[in-house]
Structure formats: C-alpha cells, structure tokens
C-alpha cells in the first residue's frame, strides 16, 4: 500500500540487566499510515516505549540491542541505515516528543536556541532566520508572547509550556511522522486537553502521521484512529479504535477496558484483571497472558475447549479473526460479544 509511511516488521529488542537478558520487545509488527493516529497501548513493561525508541534507534543509546527486524521508512530500513543518514531522518522527517519535557530539554540553553538549532541543523538556515522561525513556531503551538518566551530557559516554563516547546521543536521541519511517547502523562487534565487538541489540529494541517504511545485508554479513545495493544513485549491485537473498544478480540484488551471506572456508566465492582504484570525475566510460557486470562478459566470450567492446555504451551500468533482486526488468542471466537465503551 502506498499510504503506509512507516512499517515495523518483526522487531525484537533486548536489554542486558544484572539479573539476565530482558526481551523487552519480542517480534512486533505494525504499519503507520499517512495522516492517521495509531495508538500503541499497554501497561508498564509491555515494550511500547522500547518499540517507539527503536524506530529511531534511540534505544541503542540506552543499552538496548536491536536483535532483529526492520523499520521501513521512505524505501529504506532505518535499522540498517548508516548513522549519518539516520541523523538526517531524526528530528527532520521523523520527530519525537517525550513524556518528561523537563528532562528532554537542555537546562543551560534558552528554549529558543534549542528550537533554532534544529532549524539550522536540518534546514541550513542562518542564525537570525532560525530565531525568527522559532518565534513563528512558538506562536503556532500557542505559546503566549513568543518573542519573549524564546529567550526563556526551560525552568522558567510550566510543564504544559515545555511540552509546547517540544512540539514546536518536533514540528520545525514539518515531519511526516511524529512519535509521541506518553506526551500528556505528566500534565494535568485541563492542560492535557489543550495539548491533545494542539497535536490533532497540527496533524490536520500538515497531514502528518502520529504514533502515540500511551497507557491511558481514555486518551486512545479520544485521538486514536487505530489501536495496537501490547502485552509482555508482544502485539496482542490491532484494529480501528472503534472495533477494539466495542468488540475487543483479545481477553487482555477486554480486561483493560473493563478495569477502568467510567465517568457515566453505573458504578459497581470493577472487573479487574487478576494478578499482576509478569516479570520480564520470566515471562509465562505459551500465551503470555494465560495465567491472568478469564477466557481460559471460563473455557476450562465449561470444559468445551478440547484442552485450553494449548494456551500454556503454544504462543498464539496474530490471526485475522475479523477483516483487518487481528488478535493473538487461540480462542478469540469465544470472546464475549461486546465490552462497554471505555471511560468515559
């Protein structure tokens, strides 16, 4: 397909820890299409951030090793690209914003200098011109008094303003792809609404694709066109946001959605997923979700599964149970019909 701007195939990334090898990402595939927002969701340790950081090979700077896989962008595999060529893509064609705008900005330079640096580096503008362009960008991302704000240092700005600066920096070269790693997690809900609104409107103007990494299903519901759900380093379900929320095919997705209290639905006991997220040094065999899976338990008590033993023995691969809605579950056809819409 021509409208695919970024294609990740069979990505595997590992980290060496004191306690052993951690396979943080273990065979992940997805495609990002022009102009869309793809939300990569999952809980802590599922590998969503590592996946995002592997695209531009930032993970290598954090001690991660890309074991296998490819990331296709503009006809080239970013994972095999020489460092020099990759630098021309980074921040230019593919930009990234992070959860902690405080740590992502350099405290000893003014925010204007930092944005101007990107413009000089990638677009070859002169100092003065770059500064003027930075002021323009600040205005576009809704920073008040942009011509004064460019001379401020990061500590003089609030969290929301710093995230706007990061977005201005990311937009400097009109990228085709924006990777946003938990961009609003550190922000208050009213500021989060401003930032999500800003990203959406800039996306409409520029037609850029957004890969949104988040653990917050509310945010996914709000801005996601399509959703990919990760669990323990693997992809468990892909689909349009509507399909995934209204008819999840993987028991984990179903569990996540029912775990969240709603702003509108009647209150009662929450249907929590039992147990906790497994230790990445010791993932369960077979389907990594099987020890927590309600569907497996249900099939066992109904005794109709013909052996849900398969769950603990064979790792399920993604299968298209419905058109363009694959899930990695041996028994997705037994999924209860519809979960409720997520909060709110």
């Amino acid at each position, binding site marked *: 397909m021509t409208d695919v701007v970024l294609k990740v195939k069979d990505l595997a990334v590992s980290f060496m820890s004191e306690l052993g090898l951690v396979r943080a990402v273990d065979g992940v595939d997805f495609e990002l299409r022009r102009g869309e927002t793809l939300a990569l969701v999952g809980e802590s340790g599922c590998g969503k951030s590592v996946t995002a950081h592997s695209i531009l090979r930032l993970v290598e700077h954090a001690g991660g090793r890309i074991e296998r896989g490819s990331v296709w962008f503009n006809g080239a595999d970013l994972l095999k690209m020489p460092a020099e060529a990759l630098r021309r893509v980074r921040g230019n064609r593919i930009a990234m914003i992070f959860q902690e705008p405080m740590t992502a900005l350099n405290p000893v330079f003014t925010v204007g200098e930092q944005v101007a640096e990107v413009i000089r580096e990638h677009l070859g503008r002169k100092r003065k011109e770059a500064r003027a362009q930075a002021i323009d960008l600040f205005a576009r991302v809704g920073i008040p008094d942009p011509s004064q704000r460019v001379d401020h240092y990061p500590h003089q700005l609030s969290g929301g303003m710093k995230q706007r600066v990061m977005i201005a920096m990311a937009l400097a070269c009109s990228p085709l792809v924006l990777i946003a790693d938990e961009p609003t997690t550190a922000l208050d*809900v009213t*500021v989060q609404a401003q930032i999500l609104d800003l990203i959406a409107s800039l996306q409409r103007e520029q037609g850029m694709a957004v890969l949104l990494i988040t653990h917050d299903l509310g945010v996914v519901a709000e801005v996601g066109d399509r959703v990919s759900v990760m669990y323990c380093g693997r992809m468990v379900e892909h689909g349009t946001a509507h399909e995934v929320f209204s008819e999840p095919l993987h028991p984990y997705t179903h569990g996540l959605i029912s775990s*969240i209290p709603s702003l509108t639905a009647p209150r009662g006991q929450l249907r929590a997923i039992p147990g906790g997220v497994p230790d990445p040094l010791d993932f369960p065999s077979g389907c990594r979700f099987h020890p927590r899976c309600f569907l497996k338990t249900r099939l066992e008590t109904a005794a109709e599964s013909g052996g849900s033993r398969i769950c603990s023995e064979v790792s399920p691969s993604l299968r298209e149970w419905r058109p363009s809605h694959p899930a990695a579950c041996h028994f997705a056809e037994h999924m209860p019909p519809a979960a409720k819409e997520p909060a709110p």
Partner: protein
Amino acid sequence: MTPRAESALLEVDHLVKHFPLRRGLFSRVHAWVRAVDDVSFDLHAGETLGLVGESGSGKTTLGRSVLLLEEPTSGKLCFDGVDLISLRPSALRRTRRRMQFIFQDPYGSLNPRMRVESIVGEGMRIHSLARGAELRRRVAEILDQVGLPPSAMSRYPHEFSGGQRQRIGIARALSVDPSLIVCDEPVSALDVSVQAQVLNLLMEIRARRRLSYLFISHDLSVVRHISHRVAVMYLGQIVESGGVDELFSQPRHPYTQALLSAVPTRDPERKRLRILLPGEPPSPTDPPKGCRFHPRCPVAEKLCAVEEPPWKQRSATHSYRCIH
C-alpha cells in the same frame, strides 16, 4: 459547605495552611505559599469524600493537615467531637490511631529494611493493641483481608510488585482499626489492571468496616467510582462540593465544568461541548484577587476580579462558589 445537623466524624472548619518561602542570608520569609486557604467540610462515618483538583490545588496538603501531619496555620479540626489542635501530644497519639493515611507512592512509603510483619505490626505494637503470638496472628489476618498470603510476612517490600506494596500500605493502615483513612492518590502509581483490584479492595473494606475515606485524586473517573460526595479544589480553596451524582451530572462551577469536559472521550458530542481552559493554574504564592479562577474563567465578569464569590446552594447537599 454548610454544617449538617447530625454530628460528623470529621469537621474541618476554616482550615488554613500557608508555607513560608525563605530567601537570603537570614532566611527571611519573602512570601507565603497559600496551599490551603480557608477550607471547611465535614465527613460522616462510613462516608467517602472525594477531593479532586489539579497539581498545586492543595489537595495533598489538605489531606496531610487533616491528620496533623502538617500543622495548620489556623482553623479548627474536630474528630469525633474532639478538637484535635488543642489536644496534648499523648492524647493526640491515642486519637491518631483512629486516623490513618495511605500514600501515593507504594515504593517510597514502606521502609525497605523492615519485613512486612514489622511494617504491618508496628502500629499495633505502638498502640499496645497486641503482642507476641497474638500480634503475628492479627498481622496474618489483616494480610489475608487485603489479599496477601501469610508467607508475605517474612519478606521485604522490594520483593513485591507495586500493587502488592499498595496492599501492604492498606494493611498497615487497617492494622490499628481506624475510623478514617486519608487516601492520597492511592492508585495513580499503579497499572490500570492493578488499579481496579485496589479500588475494589478499598470499597470492600469500607463496606465491611464502615470506614470513612478522604479520597484524594486527580482522576475524575476514579473519584466518581469510589466517592459518595465530592469536593473540587482550585488554588487552595474548595470551589464546589456535592453528592457525586449531582456534581458529575450538573456541575455548577465553571472550573468543575471545564475539568469534567477535559476528560478524554470518544463521544463526539462531549468533544464538541468541551471547554478548553486557557493557560494553567496560577501560583498559589500569589493567587488572583477576587475569584481565584477568574483569569481562566470563560464566563468571568469585571466583578469577579474584585469580589470573593459567595457560596451558593443548588440543593441541600450541592453548593458552589461563583457569582453566576
């Protein structure tokens, strides 16, 4: 909020907590952070009051002041009819047994060098509620109530996951049989799937023991789920309070309305009605004159910058602080 006829478990009356900001060679106080600025509410036995607000609204300071973990600057605190502020230290310690705290950070709030048995048993020992074999038996019983196996007793906090550590924190709070627990963002550090388990547990315990919670959270869905009544804070003050259903379905204060409408949603109708607030909350060091919300308020008038808004009653249980 207006005082109600029957006596409350906790009465907070015009509570103020200001922190000094010091600077220079002689640490001269050059400004005050007005973290909690004239807050009144009451809490009844078995009731959960949800306290919502954004960072810097003073909700955590309020929670800590209620248990005298921060000494209030002024105001009155009554617990079960007893004025806490005038209590002698020994009497305060006895009363404190009935008021416990659950912290946000399940990693930082447990002593890493103590075994779970000592962490959970410490309160009972200090208050001479049990000792020896009886103490061990009661620790095991409480651990069982929060869903931890007896084998947890001999282990250290680092051996547990975040959700399990929060259960240990809950067990510690329950150990001394309190009447009131202040829960400060008890689930916000947890994964979604684990958050639901802990919320269910808190609600189960509340029903079994007729506990009162002061439940502090920035997460509106969580607060709606667990609370009977809700108070919304902005810059050190409560701006609206009411029964959970009336407040969520008919918010009256423009800040509450904006806050509720900012929660992410799939619903295009809700998105269309969203009130996007400009800017961010100002500093509590120098709060705006008049109504503190007026610089960001979509319906502010000239008067709002001058006059402190009065409390208005929408119903017997629902009141808000706005001239509109």
